[in-house]
Each structure stands twice: as C-alpha cells, then as structure tokens.
C-alpha cells in the first residue's frame, strides 16, 4: 500500500527548498520548448519518483526520508542536473 501522505511531504519539501534556491515555479512559455529547470518540472517529478523508489524497495520510508528526498531533489536540480545532462548545442540537435 502506498503511503500517499509521504509523497505529498516530498513534494512540499522539494517545492520549499526549490523556492529558497530561487528555482522558477514553472518554465517560461511556450513551456514545451523551454529547457528551464523549474519547481514543477522536473524537481517535483524527481522527488516523487525517488521517494517511490525508496518506498517500494523498502530502503527507507517515512517522514524524514520524504523531507530529505525533497531537499536532495531541489539541490540536485539546481546545481547538478545541467552538468549531468547538459542542454544540447543547437548545432548538435538540429
């Protein structure tokens, strides 16, 4: 059984830390062409998916895990994501 409340805690934690790290709430419009990393996409998606992984495999679960995963997701998106999977050069992609 999924512990929905902890997923919500992970989302809130990621969103709060994202705000503190000055991530925008949403990518700029048109969103479908934007590469901007924002709170809604992909910070919250990463937080929820990571918590699902920890919860399903019974590595750790509960309120502290949800908070720590939320913080990690926001810090990861702010500082590491673009280094790990950089935005492609226009010349490379087209």
């Amino acid at each position, binding site marked *: 059984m*999924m512990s929905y409340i902890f997923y919500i805690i992970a989302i809130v934690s990621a969103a709060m830390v994202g705000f503190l790290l000055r991530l925008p709430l949403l990518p700029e419009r*048109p*969103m*479908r*062409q*934007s*590469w901007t990393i924002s709170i809604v*996409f*992909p910070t919250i*998606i*990463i937080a*929820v*998916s*990571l918590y*699902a*992984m920890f*919860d*399903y495999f019974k590595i750790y679960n509960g309120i502290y895990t949800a908070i720590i995963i939320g913080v990690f997701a926001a810090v990861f998106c702010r500082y590491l994501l673009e280094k790990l*999977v950089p935005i*492609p050069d226009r010349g*490379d*992609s*087209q």
Partner: protein
Amino acid sequence: MNEILAIVLGAVLSWLNFVLIDIWMGLPEAPGVRGAKAIGKSIEKRDGDLGGGYFSGNIVCSPDASAGTLLASCCYFAFHSPAGGLIAALFVYFGNRICADPGYAGTTGALTITILIWATSYIGLSPQNFIVGIVIAILTIQGLYHPLVSKLIGKMARKMNRKVIEPE
C-alpha cells in the same frame, strides 16, 4: 473482463494517451534532431504530411509519450504497484534529456498512463492489457502505412493548433 475486449480498450486508451500528449507537446511542429527531420521529409516525399512525418521522426529519435506509456505500463506490471509508473517516469525523463529533448512529453505520458492504469484497474483492466495495447498503438502509427497516418496526425495537430514551424 473478457481479455480481447480488455486489450482493445487498453489499445484505445494507450493510443489516445500517447498521440494526444505528443501532439499537445508539439512533436509535429519541428524535428528535435536531424534524424527526425530526415524521417519527416521522407514521409512527405511519399505523399504524407510533413507535421505527421516530424511526429513519427520525433517518436523514433527520443523517448516521447509512446515510450513513456510503454515503460510505465511495463514497470507498473513488474512492480505490481503505481510506484512502478512513477519510477519509470524518472528514467524516461533522463532518457529524454540524453536524447536532446526537454522531456515534457515522455514524463507526462508516463505519469498519465500510470493514473489511467490505476483508475481502470477498478473496472478489470490490468497493466498487461496496456502493454499489449501500446504495442498495437505504436504499430498503427509506425508500422502500417506512413502517408495515411501522417495525414491523420497532421489533421489532428492543426485542430490542436500545433502547426509545422519550418526549421531554418
């Protein structure tokens, strides 16, 4: 539920999920990579629609909502839980980023099909119906007759205000 009926229903839901999300996310507007452009132009040359061709090309070249739908269905089945669909969304997102794609279509497709599988489990559909369903759905787009399918996709794209933007 009768298994054949369940597979047909799974195929219809998967088709609608991936086609509508991919069009909404602008796949028919422009090719994401050179390969997608080549596929689009080739389909246009064979009396197809350029927007529909770019749509097919983009699906081939990066994991969009079609791959998101397939992977989320597989993970939901393997994990016996909606957590599988959520985990699939993470891997689809990173797969998208590696393939020069911002990742909106694939991730959204994975999350929406997870919700759909969870909701339809109450009327007797199971994740394996969706796995077969999405394979059939992708076959109808990529494997039968490109010119006709590309015209249908092009028409749907124009209705959803996603017209082709010619790359320079």
